[in-house]
Protein backbone atom coordinates (compact mmCIF):
# COMPACT_ATOMS: atom_id res chain seq x y z
CA UNK A 1 0.00 0.00 0.00
CA UNK A 2 1.40 3.40 -0.93
CA UNK A 3 1.98 6.16 1.57
CA UNK A 4 0.29 9.56 1.34
CA UNK A 5 3.69 11.11 0.62
CA UNK A 6 4.34 8.51 -2.03
CA UNK A 7 1.08 9.33 -3.78
CA UNK A 8 0.94 13.09 -3.27
CA UNK A 9 4.63 13.92 -3.05
CA UNK A 10 4.35 15.56 0.36
CA UNK A 11 3.46 14.67 3.91
CA UNK A 12 0.28 15.85 5.58
CA UNK A 13 0.83 19.16 7.32
CA UNK A 14 -0.45 20.00 10.76
CA UNK A 15 -1.45 23.65 10.84
CA UNK A 16 -2.77 26.00 13.48
CA UNK A 17 -4.92 27.81 10.94
CA UNK A 18 -6.19 27.01 7.47
CA UNK A 19 -3.88 27.96 4.57
CA UNK A 20 -4.90 29.94 1.49
CA UNK A 21 -7.29 27.63 -0.27
CA UNK A 22 -6.39 28.70 -3.82
CA UNK A 23 -2.88 27.38 -3.29
CA UNK A 24 -4.00 24.14 -1.67
CA UNK A 25 -6.55 22.62 -4.03
CA UNK A 26 -6.72 18.87 -3.49
CA UNK A 27 -4.42 19.11 -0.48
CA UNK A 28 -5.22 17.54 2.89
CA UNK A 29 -4.10 19.07 6.19
CA UNK A 30 -4.83 18.68 9.89
CA UNK A 31 -6.05 21.80 11.70
CA UNK A 32 -4.75 21.60 15.26
CA UNK A 33 -7.04 24.36 16.46
CA UNK A 34 -10.28 22.71 15.41
CA UNK A 35 -8.80 19.20 15.53
CA UNK A 36 -10.23 18.42 12.13
CA UNK A 37 -8.96 17.11 8.82
CA UNK A 38 -9.50 19.54 5.99
CA UNK A 39 -8.85 19.83 2.28
CA UNK A 40 -9.01 22.50 -0.39
CA UNK A 41 -11.56 22.23 -3.18
CA UNK A 42 -12.18 24.07 -6.43
CA UNK A 43 -15.86 24.10 -7.38
CA UNK A 44 -17.78 25.19 -10.45
CA UNK A 45 -19.03 28.74 -10.72
CA UNK A 46 -22.11 29.60 -8.67
CA UNK A 47 -24.32 32.45 -7.50
CA UNK A 48 -24.50 33.62 -3.89
CA UNK A 49 -26.65 36.36 -2.39
CA UNK A 50 -25.16 39.84 -2.26
CA UNK A 51 -26.24 42.95 -0.40
CA UNK A 52 -29.73 44.38 -0.86
CA UNK A 53 -30.23 47.72 -2.60
CA UNK A 54 -31.67 50.52 -0.51
CA UNK A 55 -34.02 51.43 -3.36
CA UNK A 56 -35.72 48.40 -4.89
CA UNK A 57 -36.05 48.87 -8.65
CA UNK A 58 -35.81 47.36 -12.10
CA UNK A 59 -34.46 48.43 -15.51
CA UNK A 60 -31.50 50.16 -13.86
CA UNK A 61 -27.93 50.74 -14.94
CA UNK A 62 -24.74 49.42 -13.43
CA UNK A 63 -20.97 49.58 -13.66
CA UNK A 64 -17.87 48.50 -11.77
CA UNK A 65 -16.92 45.18 -10.26
CA UNK A 66 -18.33 42.64 -7.84
CA UNK A 67 -16.65 44.43 -4.93
CA UNK A 68 -16.97 48.03 -6.15
CA UNK A 69 -20.14 48.48 -8.18
CA UNK A 70 -22.46 51.36 -8.94
CA UNK A 71 -26.26 51.16 -9.38
CA UNK A 72 -28.01 54.05 -11.07
CA UNK A 73 -31.42 55.16 -12.36
CA UNK A 74 -34.17 52.56 -12.84
CA UNK A 75 -37.88 52.16 -12.29
CA UNK A 76 -39.59 51.88 -8.93
CA UNK A 77 -43.04 50.59 -8.42
CA UNK A 78 -45.51 50.89 -11.16
CA UNK A 79 -45.65 50.00 -14.77
CA UNK A 80 -44.77 51.99 -17.88
CA UNK A 81 -44.63 54.93 -18.14
CA UNK A 82 -44.32 55.88 -14.48
CA UNK A 83 -41.80 55.12 -11.81
CA UNK A 84 -38.51 56.48 -13.23
CA UNK A 85 -35.98 57.24 -10.49
CA UNK A 86 -32.58 58.94 -10.25
CA UNK A 87 -31.32 57.04 -7.21
CA UNK A 88 -27.64 56.05 -7.16
CA UNK A 89 -26.02 53.52 -4.85
CA UNK A 90 -22.47 52.26 -4.33
CA UNK A 91 -21.58 48.66 -3.45
CA UNK A 92 -18.49 47.58 -1.52
CA UNK A 93 -18.95 43.84 -1.93
CA UNK A 94 -21.12 43.59 1.16
CA UNK A 95 -23.64 46.41 1.31
CA UNK A 96 -25.09 49.23 -0.76
CA UNK A 97 -24.84 52.87 0.30
CA UNK A 98 -26.82 55.78 -1.11
CA UNK A 99 -24.68 57.96 -3.36
CA UNK A 100 -25.10 61.26 -5.16
CA UNK A 101 -28.36 61.28 -7.08
CA UNK A 102 -28.37 61.91 -10.81
CA UNK A 103 -30.11 64.94 -12.29
CA UNK A 104 -32.89 63.20 -14.22
CA UNK A 105 -35.19 60.24 -13.62
CA UNK A 106 -34.94 57.53 -16.28
CA UNK A 107 -35.04 53.77 -16.82
CA UNK A 108 -34.18 51.32 -19.61
CA UNK A 109 -31.32 53.57 -20.64
CA UNK A 110 -27.94 52.48 -21.97
CA UNK A 111 -25.44 52.04 -19.13
CA UNK A 112 -21.72 52.11 -19.75
CA UNK A 113 -18.46 52.83 -17.95
CA UNK A 114 -16.21 50.22 -16.43
CA UNK A 115 -15.74 51.30 -12.84
CA UNK A 116 -17.59 52.62 -9.81
CA UNK A 117 -16.24 56.11 -10.51
CA UNK A 118 -16.67 56.19 -14.29
CA UNK A 119 -20.19 55.53 -15.52
CA UNK A 120 -22.84 57.01 -17.78
CA UNK A 121 -26.49 56.56 -18.63
CA UNK A 122 -27.93 57.43 -22.03
CA UNK A 123 -31.52 57.52 -23.21
CA UNK A 124 -34.32 55.44 -21.75
CA UNK A 125 -37.78 56.33 -20.59
CA UNK A 126 -37.98 59.56 -18.65
CA UNK A 127 -40.59 60.53 -16.13
CA UNK A 128 -43.77 62.16 -17.47
CA UNK A 129 -44.64 64.62 -18.94
CA UNK A 130 -43.81 63.51 -22.53
CA UNK A 131 -41.63 63.07 -24.47
CA UNK A 132 -41.01 59.89 -22.57
CA UNK A 133 -38.32 58.46 -24.83
CA UNK A 134 -35.28 60.39 -23.76
CA UNK A 135 -31.98 61.05 -25.51
CA UNK A 136 -30.44 62.55 -22.41
CA UNK A 137 -26.95 61.48 -21.27
CA UNK A 138 -25.45 61.89 -17.82
CA UNK A 139 -21.85 61.08 -16.84
CA UNK A 140 -20.56 60.15 -13.39
CA UNK A 141 -16.95 60.90 -12.39
CA UNK A 142 -17.06 59.52 -8.88
CA UNK A 143 -18.40 62.67 -7.28
CA UNK A 144 -20.89 64.41 -9.58
CA UNK A 145 -23.34 63.68 -12.39
CA UNK A 146 -22.95 65.95 -15.41
CA UNK A 147 -25.29 66.20 -18.36
CA UNK A 148 -23.66 65.72 -21.74
CA UNK A 149 -24.73 65.57 -25.40
CA UNK A 150 -27.97 63.78 -26.25
CA UNK A 151 -28.32 60.62 -28.29
CA UNK A 152 -29.11 61.29 -31.94
CA UNK A 153 -32.60 59.96 -31.23
CA UNK A 154 -34.47 59.45 -27.98
CA UNK A 155 -34.82 55.72 -27.38
CA UNK A 156 -35.50 53.16 -24.66
CA UNK A 157 -35.14 49.40 -24.29
CA UNK A 158 -31.38 49.38 -23.78
CA UNK A 159 -29.74 46.75 -21.61
CA UNK A 160 -26.16 47.68 -20.97
CA UNK A 161 -23.57 49.38 -23.12
CA UNK A 162 -19.83 49.33 -23.68
CA UNK A 163 -16.73 51.38 -23.15
CA UNK A 164 -16.10 54.35 -20.91
CA UNK A 165 -17.45 57.84 -20.41
CA UNK A 166 -14.87 59.17 -22.86
CA UNK A 167 -15.38 56.42 -25.46
CA UNK A 168 -18.71 54.67 -25.08
CA UNK A 169 -21.27 52.76 -27.14
CA UNK A 170 -24.95 51.86 -26.97
CA UNK A 171 -26.87 49.60 -29.35
CA UNK A 172 -30.18 47.86 -29.72
CA UNK A 173 -33.22 49.68 -28.41
CA UNK A 174 -36.93 49.76 -28.73
CA UNK A 175 -38.96 49.15 -30.62
CA UNK A 176 -36.60 46.64 -32.33
CA UNK A 177 -34.02 49.19 -33.35
CA UNK A 178 -30.59 48.22 -34.68
CA UNK A 179 -29.15 51.70 -34.36
CA UNK A 180 -25.71 51.97 -32.78
CA UNK A 181 -24.20 55.15 -31.45
CA UNK A 182 -20.71 55.88 -30.15
CA UNK A 183 -19.82 58.56 -27.62
CA UNK A 184 -16.61 60.59 -27.47
CA UNK A 185 -17.25 62.07 -24.05
CA UNK A 186 -19.47 64.86 -25.27
CA UNK A 187 -21.16 63.94 -28.56
CA UNK A 188 -22.98 60.88 -29.91
CA UNK A 189 -22.44 59.72 -33.48
CA UNK A 190 -24.60 57.19 -35.26
CA UNK A 191 -22.55 54.36 -36.73
CA UNK A 192 -23.33 51.01 -38.39
CA UNK A 193 -26.50 49.21 -37.31
CA UNK A 194 -26.71 45.80 -35.72
CA UNK A 195 -27.12 43.02 -38.31
CA UNK A 196 -30.38 42.07 -36.56
CA UNK A 197 -32.45 44.93 -35.21
CA UNK A 198 -33.59 44.21 -31.67
CA UNK A 199 -34.39 45.63 -28.30
CA UNK A 200 -33.99 44.50 -24.73
CA UNK A 201 -30.70 42.97 -25.90
CA UNK A 202 -27.84 42.86 -23.39
CA UNK A 203 -24.74 44.76 -24.54
CA UNK A 204 -21.32 44.77 -22.93
CA UNK A 205 -17.70 45.48 -23.81
CA UNK A 206 -14.60 46.97 -22.31
CA UNK A 207 -14.17 49.59 -25.02
CA UNK A 208 -16.21 51.34 -27.69
CA UNK A 209 -14.33 49.34 -30.33
CA UNK A 210 -14.88 45.90 -28.80
CA UNK A 211 -18.48 45.24 -27.80
CA UNK A 212 -21.01 42.45 -28.01
CA UNK A 213 -24.79 42.36 -28.30
CA UNK A 214 -26.49 39.16 -27.20
CA UNK A 215 -30.04 37.88 -27.33
CA UNK A 216 -32.85 40.39 -27.35
CA UNK A 217 -36.18 40.68 -28.99
CA UNK A 218 -37.00 41.43 -32.60
CA UNK A 219 -40.61 42.40 -32.87
CA UNK A 220 -42.67 40.15 -35.16
CA UNK A 221 -43.69 41.51 -38.52
CA UNK A 222 -47.35 41.50 -37.54
CA UNK A 223 -46.69 43.71 -34.53
CA UNK A 224 -47.99 47.28 -34.70
CA UNK A 225 -44.72 48.53 -33.23
CA UNK A 226 -42.10 47.61 -35.82
CA UNK A 227 -40.91 45.06 -38.30
CA UNK A 228 -38.34 42.48 -37.39
CA UNK A 229 -37.47 38.82 -37.20
CA UNK A 230 -39.40 38.12 -34.01
CA UNK A 231 -38.62 35.81 -31.12
CA UNK A 232 -36.28 35.95 -28.17
CA UNK A 233 -33.11 35.43 -30.11
CA UNK A 234 -29.84 33.91 -28.97
CA UNK A 235 -27.80 35.74 -31.57
CA UNK A 236 -24.39 37.08 -30.62
CA UNK A 237 -22.95 39.97 -32.58
CA UNK A 238 -19.48 41.43 -32.12
CA UNK A 239 -18.59 45.07 -32.79
CA UNK A 240 -15.05 45.76 -34.02
CA UNK A 241 -15.18 49.53 -34.04
CA UNK A 242 -16.74 49.87 -37.46
CA UNK A 243 -19.28 47.08 -37.98
CA UNK A 244 -21.26 44.32 -36.28
CA UNK A 245 -20.72 40.67 -37.26
CA UNK A 246 -22.87 37.68 -36.37
CA UNK A 247 -20.75 34.99 -34.78
CA UNK A 248 -21.56 31.30 -34.59
CA UNK A 249 -21.65 31.18 -30.82
CA UNK A 250 -25.31 31.73 -30.01
CA UNK A 251 -26.80 31.56 -26.55
CA UNK A 252 -27.97 28.14 -25.43
CA UNK A 253 -31.14 29.86 -24.30
CA UNK A 254 -32.33 32.93 -26.20
CA UNK A 255 -33.43 35.64 -23.79
CA UNK A 256 -34.30 39.31 -23.40
CA UNK A 257 -33.78 41.72 -20.51
CA UNK A 258 -30.94 39.58 -19.16
CA UNK A 259 -28.02 40.88 -17.15
CA UNK A 260 -24.61 40.81 -18.80
CA UNK A 261 -21.15 41.65 -17.52
CA UNK A 262 -17.70 41.35 -19.04
CA UNK A 263 -16.02 41.83 -22.39
CA UNK A 264 -15.93 40.31 -25.86
CA UNK A 265 -13.37 37.77 -24.65
CA UNK A 266 -14.98 36.78 -21.32
CA UNK A 267 -18.49 37.52 -20.12
CA UNK A 268 -21.39 36.15 -18.11
CA UNK A 269 -25.09 36.53 -18.92
CA UNK A 270 -27.86 35.60 -16.50
CA UNK A 271 -31.59 35.71 -16.04
CA UNK A 272 -33.93 37.31 -18.50
CA UNK A 273 -37.19 36.32 -20.12
CA UNK A 274 -37.27 33.40 -22.49
CA UNK A 275 -39.63 31.01 -24.22
CA UNK A 276 -40.75 32.78 -27.36
CA UNK A 277 -41.60 31.79 -30.09
CA UNK A 278 -43.26 29.03 -28.12
CA UNK A 279 -45.26 30.89 -25.49
CA UNK A 280 -45.81 31.17 -22.65
CA UNK A 281 -42.68 33.17 -22.07
CA UNK A 282 -41.06 32.65 -18.70
CA UNK A 283 -38.38 34.29 -16.60
CA UNK A 284 -35.25 32.21 -16.23
CA UNK A 285 -32.60 31.87 -13.55
CA UNK A 286 -30.09 30.23 -15.87
CA UNK A 287 -26.73 31.74 -16.69
CA UNK A 288 -24.07 31.24 -19.35
CA UNK A 289 -20.43 32.25 -19.68
CA UNK A 290 -18.68 33.40 -22.86
CA UNK A 291 -15.06 32.53 -23.61
CA UNK A 292 -14.68 34.58 -26.77
CA UNK A 293 -16.04 31.82 -28.97
CA UNK A 294 -19.00 30.08 -27.41
CA UNK A 295 -21.53 30.20 -24.58
CA UNK A 296 -21.53 27.53 -21.86
CA UNK A 297 -24.37 26.98 -19.42
CA UNK A 298 -23.17 27.36 -15.83
CA UNK A 299 -24.84 27.42 -12.41
CA UNK A 300 -28.21 29.12 -12.15
CA UNK A 301 -29.12 32.11 -10.03
CA UNK A 302 -31.39 31.32 -7.08
CA UNK A 303 -34.07 33.68 -8.38
CA UNK A 304 -35.38 33.94 -11.93
CA UNK A 305 -34.77 37.66 -12.50
CA UNK A 306 -35.12 40.10 -15.39
CA UNK A 307 -34.16 43.72 -15.97
CA UNK A 308 -31.43 43.86 -13.35
CA UNK A 309 -28.42 46.15 -13.15
CA UNK A 310 -24.98 44.62 -13.50
CA UNK A 311 -21.35 45.19 -12.76
CA UNK A 312 -19.36 45.66 -15.95
CA UNK A 313 -15.82 44.45 -15.30
CA UNK A 314 -14.91 40.98 -14.13
CA UNK A 315 -14.98 38.92 -17.29
CA UNK A 316 -16.62 35.52 -16.91
CA UNK A 317 -15.26 34.90 -13.42
CA UNK A 318 -16.91 37.56 -11.30
CA UNK A 319 -20.03 39.71 -11.44
CA UNK A 320 -22.81 41.13 -9.32
CA UNK A 321 -26.35 41.60 -10.62
CA UNK A 322 -28.81 43.68 -8.63
CA UNK A 323 -32.43 44.74 -8.52
CA UNK A 324 -34.74 43.75 -11.37
CA UNK A 325 -38.13 42.11 -11.69
CA UNK A 326 -40.63 40.46 -11.22
CA UNK A 327 -41.94 43.26 -9.09
CA UNK A 328 -39.21 45.65 -8.07
CA UNK A 329 -36.39 43.76 -6.42
CA UNK A 330 -33.79 44.98 -3.97
CA UNK A 331 -31.87 41.73 -3.85
CA UNK A 332 -28.59 41.00 -5.60
CA UNK A 333 -26.65 37.90 -6.57
CA UNK A 334 -22.90 37.52 -7.02
CA UNK A 335 -21.35 35.17 -9.57
CA UNK A 336 -17.93 33.69 -8.90
CA UNK A 337 -16.15 31.13 -11.06
CA UNK A 338 -14.42 29.09 -9.86
CA UNK A 339 -15.43 28.90 -6.22
CA UNK A 340 -12.76 27.88 -3.72
CA UNK A 341 -13.81 26.10 -0.56
CA UNK A 342 -12.24 24.47 2.46
CA UNK A 343 -14.02 21.26 3.34
CA UNK A 344 -13.89 19.44 6.64
CA UNK A 345 -13.50 15.69 6.43
CA UNK A 346 -16.33 13.92 8.21
CA UNK A 347 -17.13 10.28 8.76
CA UNK A 348 -20.64 10.56 7.29
Amino acid at each position, binding site marked *: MGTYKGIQGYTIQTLGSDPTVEENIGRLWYNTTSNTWKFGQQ*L*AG*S*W*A*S*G*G*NLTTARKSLGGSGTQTAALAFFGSQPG*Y*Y*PSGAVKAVEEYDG*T*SWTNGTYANSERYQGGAFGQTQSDAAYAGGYSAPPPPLQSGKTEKWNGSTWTESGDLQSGRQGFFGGAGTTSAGLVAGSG*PANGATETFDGSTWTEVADLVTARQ*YAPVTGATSTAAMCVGG*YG*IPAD*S*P*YSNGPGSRVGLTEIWNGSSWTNVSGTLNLGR*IEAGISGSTSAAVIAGG*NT*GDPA*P*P*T*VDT*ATSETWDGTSWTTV*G*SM*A*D*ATVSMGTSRSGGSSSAVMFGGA*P*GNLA*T*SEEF*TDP*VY*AIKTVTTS
Partner: protein
Amino acid sequence: MANTYCTATNWGKGFFTHDDRHNFYLSGHAGDVWVVGNNAAGVSWINRVEGTAKAKADAQTIVDGKIEEAQVAWDASSDYEKSLHDRPEKYILP
Protein backbone atom coordinates in the same frame (compact mmCIF):
# COMPACT_ATOMS: atom_id res chain seq x y z
CA MET B 1 -39.11 13.69 -1.08
CA ALA B 2 -36.66 15.69 -3.17
CA ASN B 3 -37.54 19.18 -1.97
CA THR B 4 -38.83 20.95 1.07
CA TYR B 5 -40.46 24.39 1.29
CA CYS B 6 -40.25 27.47 3.44
CA THR B 7 -40.74 31.21 3.50
CA ALA B 8 -37.82 33.42 4.47
CA THR B 9 -36.85 37.01 3.77
CA ASN B 10 -33.62 37.47 1.84
CA TRP B 11 -31.62 39.85 4.05
CA GLY B 12 -28.77 40.17 1.57
CA LYS B 13 -25.13 39.12 1.78
CA GLY B 14 -24.74 35.71 3.38
CA PHE B 15 -28.39 34.73 3.04
CA PHE B 16 -27.26 31.98 0.70
CA THR B 17 -23.61 31.30 0.01
CA HIS B 18 -21.63 29.54 -2.68
CA ASP B 19 -21.28 26.63 -0.29
CA ASP B 20 -25.05 26.47 0.05
CA ARG B 21 -25.50 26.47 -3.71
CA HIS B 22 -23.13 23.53 -4.04
CA ASN B 23 -24.64 21.59 -1.15
CA PHE B 24 -28.35 21.65 -1.96
CA TYR B 25 -30.91 22.75 -4.52
CA LEU B 26 -32.29 26.24 -3.90
CA SER B 27 -34.69 28.39 -5.86
CA GLY B 28 -36.53 31.54 -4.87
CA HIS B 29 -40.12 32.34 -5.80
CA ALA B 30 -42.63 35.12 -5.36
CA GLY B 31 -43.83 35.75 -1.84
CA ASP B 32 -40.47 34.90 -0.24
CA VAL B 33 -41.09 31.24 -0.97
CA TRP B 34 -37.99 29.05 -1.20
CA VAL B 35 -37.75 25.56 -2.60
CA VAL B 36 -34.93 23.80 -0.80
CA GLY B 37 -33.27 20.50 -1.49
CA ASN B 38 -34.32 18.07 1.20
CA ASN B 39 -30.99 17.03 2.63
CA ALA B 40 -29.13 17.83 5.85
CA ALA B 41 -27.51 20.95 4.38
CA GLY B 42 -30.84 22.23 3.07
CA VAL B 43 -32.60 21.70 6.38
CA SER B 44 -29.69 23.37 8.17
CA TRP B 45 -30.02 26.38 5.84
CA ILE B 46 -33.72 26.77 6.64
CA ASN B 47 -32.82 26.88 10.32
CA ARG B 48 -29.98 29.32 9.70
CA VAL B 49 -32.19 31.82 7.85
CA GLU B 50 -35.01 31.28 10.34
CA GLY B 51 -37.30 30.08 7.58
CA THR B 52 -40.87 29.07 8.25
CA ALA B 53 -41.48 25.56 6.98
CA LYS B 54 -44.40 25.21 4.60
CA ALA B 55 -46.23 22.29 3.09
CA LYS B 56 -45.85 22.29 -0.67
CA ALA B 57 -49.55 23.11 -1.11
CA ASP B 58 -49.25 26.12 1.19
CA ALA B 59 -46.12 27.36 -0.58
CA GLN B 60 -47.91 26.93 -3.89
CA THR B 61 -50.86 28.98 -2.64
CA ILE B 62 -48.55 31.86 -1.70
CA VAL B 63 -46.86 31.85 -5.10
CA ASP B 64 -50.21 31.59 -6.90
CA GLY B 65 -51.47 34.61 -4.99
CA LYS B 66 -48.48 36.69 -6.03
CA ILE B 67 -48.88 35.63 -9.65
CA GLU B 68 -52.54 36.65 -9.55
CA GLU B 69 -51.38 40.10 -8.37
CA ALA B 70 -48.93 40.22 -11.28
CA GLN B 71 -51.70 39.24 -13.67
CA VAL B 72 -53.77 42.20 -12.48
CA ALA B 73 -50.78 44.49 -13.03
CA TRP B 74 -50.18 43.02 -16.50
CA ASP B 75 -53.84 43.53 -17.44
CA ALA B 76 -53.46 47.20 -16.52
CA SER B 77 -50.24 47.71 -18.50
CA SER B 78 -49.89 49.28 -21.94
CA ASP B 79 -50.24 47.36 -25.20
CA TYR B 80 -46.53 47.90 -25.74
CA GLU B 81 -45.62 46.24 -22.46
CA LYS B 82 -48.04 43.45 -23.21
CA SER B 83 -46.31 42.86 -26.54
CA LEU B 84 -43.06 42.12 -24.73
CA HIS B 85 -44.24 39.80 -22.00
CA ASP B 86 -46.97 37.23 -21.93
CA ARG B 87 -49.43 37.46 -19.11
CA PRO B 88 -47.83 35.85 -16.05
CA GLU B 89 -49.01 32.28 -15.69
CA LYS B 90 -49.18 30.08 -12.66
CA TYR B 91 -46.71 27.22 -12.53
CA ILE B 92 -46.11 24.24 -10.33
CA LEU B 93 -43.30 24.55 -7.82
CA PRO B 94 -40.58 21.94 -8.28
